[in-house]
């Protein structure tokens, strides 16, 4: 099957800054894909190359099998981009903006679809309002609508929820999920990692122009083979057997690092054994943010090494002798 997006050995330099260094990436049709990374990692550059707004120094990029340079008409027809910047044309109303955008793709009579998109994005009431008069959130919706006027099979959203209120965010994600269910390939960049974790089935993490992690979201989240147990106890101090596991102790609340669920029971047994009473207990699952922070602070190779060494330093918890 032709990949929705195929990026091979893409390099891009802006003056002294190497923005992208050898990106290889494939996104399958129908995927909900996340592109994460700190500011300046190269996410937007990569999207701009995909959209033909920026030209790669070398390497090849295809959208639905169409080269973005040699076959730009077909590749651009296959792609809808919601840009990061809140841009608009102050001369036109919402409907004019959408009709014009649709016309650029050679779609003259497209009002039925335009009305549908406006309806889904709750823009119908503002159809004849000038773009200047819209709030930031409304302008953002129009940008989403503009990216969809030509029904592109591949939709790229570059930080679509930056500075957007909760309600719109929820509505937007519902709509995008729906598009994904209908077969559209979605590529998303965001700074909200919980959004990425909730929405994306697969994630690539970019750092300084390189892909430092690429896996399904669940594997990425589980690649940290540790979880945290938060405990507040009374009646005794924390047993010595658990001392090596303490990540931090704040106001009598100890956070213990465990390797597996099986260790929870043993840790609790140690507490009981010491004659302490458990006042509060909370289990913290690793989340994407943990993984992200860890990967970003070390880079790919370093991250794997660190995890292994951290794991090996934890001696298994044995049950206390009866």
């Amino acid at each position: 099957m032709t990949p929705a997006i195929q990026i091979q050995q893409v390099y891009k330099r802006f003056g002294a800054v190497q923005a992208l260094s050898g990106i290889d990436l494939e996104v399958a049709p129908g995927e909900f894909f996340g592109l994460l990374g700190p500011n300046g990692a190269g996410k937007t550059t990569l999207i701009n190359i995909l959209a033909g707004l920026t030209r790669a120094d070398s390497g090849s990029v295809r959208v639905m099998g169409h080269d973005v340079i040699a076959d730009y008409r077909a590749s651009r027809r296959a792609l809808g981009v919601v840009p990061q910047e809140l841009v608009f044309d102050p001369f036109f109303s919402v409907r004019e903006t959408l009709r014009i955008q649709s016309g650029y793709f050679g779609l003259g009579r497209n009002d039925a679809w335009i009305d549908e998109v406006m309806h889904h994005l709750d823009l119908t009431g503002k159809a004849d309002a000038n773009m200047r008069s819209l709030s930031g959130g409304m302008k953002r919706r129009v940008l989403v609508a503009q990216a969809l006027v030509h029904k592109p099979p591949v939709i790229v959203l570059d930080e679509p929820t930056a500075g957007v209120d909760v309600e719109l965010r929820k509505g937007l994600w519902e709509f995008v999920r729906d598009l994904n269910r209908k077969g559209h390939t979605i590529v998303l960049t965001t700074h909200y990692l919980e959004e990425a974790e909730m929405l994306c089935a697969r994630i690539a993490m970019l750092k300084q122009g390189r892909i430092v992690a690429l896996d399904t979201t669940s594997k990425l989240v589980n690649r940290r083979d540790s979880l945290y147990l938060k405990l507040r106890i009374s009646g005794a101090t924390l047993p010595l057997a658990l001392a090596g596991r303490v990540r931090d102790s704040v106001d009598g609340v100890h956070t213990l690092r465990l390797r597996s669920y099986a260790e929870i029971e043993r840790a609790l047994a140690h507490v009981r054994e010491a004659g302490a009473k458990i006042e509060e207990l909370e289990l913290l699952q690793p989340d994407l943010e943990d993984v992200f922070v860890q990967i970003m602070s070390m880079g790919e190779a370093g991250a794997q090494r660190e995890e292994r060494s951290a794991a090996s330093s934890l001696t298994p918890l044995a049950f206390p002798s009866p």
Partner: protein
Amino acid sequence: MSGFGTLLYKELLRFWKVAFQTIAAPVLTTLLYLLIFSHVMQGQARVYDAVPYTAFLVPGLVMMAVLQNAFANSSSSLIQSKITGNVIFVLLPPLSYWDFFVAYVLASVVRGLVVGVGVLLVSLGFVDLAFEHPLWILAFTLIGSAVLGTLGLIAGIWADKFDQIAAFQGFVIMPLTFLSGVFYSIHSLPVFWQDLSRFNPFFYMIDGFRYGFFGVSDIEPALSLGIAGACLLALTAFTLTLLKRGYKLRH
């Protein structure tokens, strides 16, 4: 509608929506030139023996308005789009660089034509004009406005801020128009300035345009048309090269 047709429509709609600024204001400005210059210069020697100064002045002013507005249209549209960032709306769709070029230049030509016709109509209330060769008038209007529309496109592509467009307009376009014989026949100039004027392509456009009205000119109109046409071809080739390479538009 095709992508090209839509871009042209959008460019036309853009200046039409602010017609006071893009059509009415230039017509009024040109009318003021006409009133003031014809008042001051009344009784001055006739030009080409038979043409009263005021009548001589009108085609010059009309052409000046055509040229300046053609330049203003493409340059201001593009720089606004670049600065506000909405230029991506025309960069994301499958428009070719030819589509892009022809749509912007054609919209400039239309703006030049509309303003030119406006100035001409208003002037006819003050001055009697002959229309000896209407086809020459049309030909020079089209070529002149296309040349300036292309120059405006180049300026819009090159500039990063409004300031630079203003500089291009103030230091290139304005001197070339004012020193091209809008207000005088170059035969009234000292020889050195006459010779210098012949290096100004705008001079041929205005001279040829004026020929269409009076049937007399400083230069053979076919030659003027050829020179203006050659300018248009050269600028077109240059602009297409810029667009094809994505200069300052696609990094």
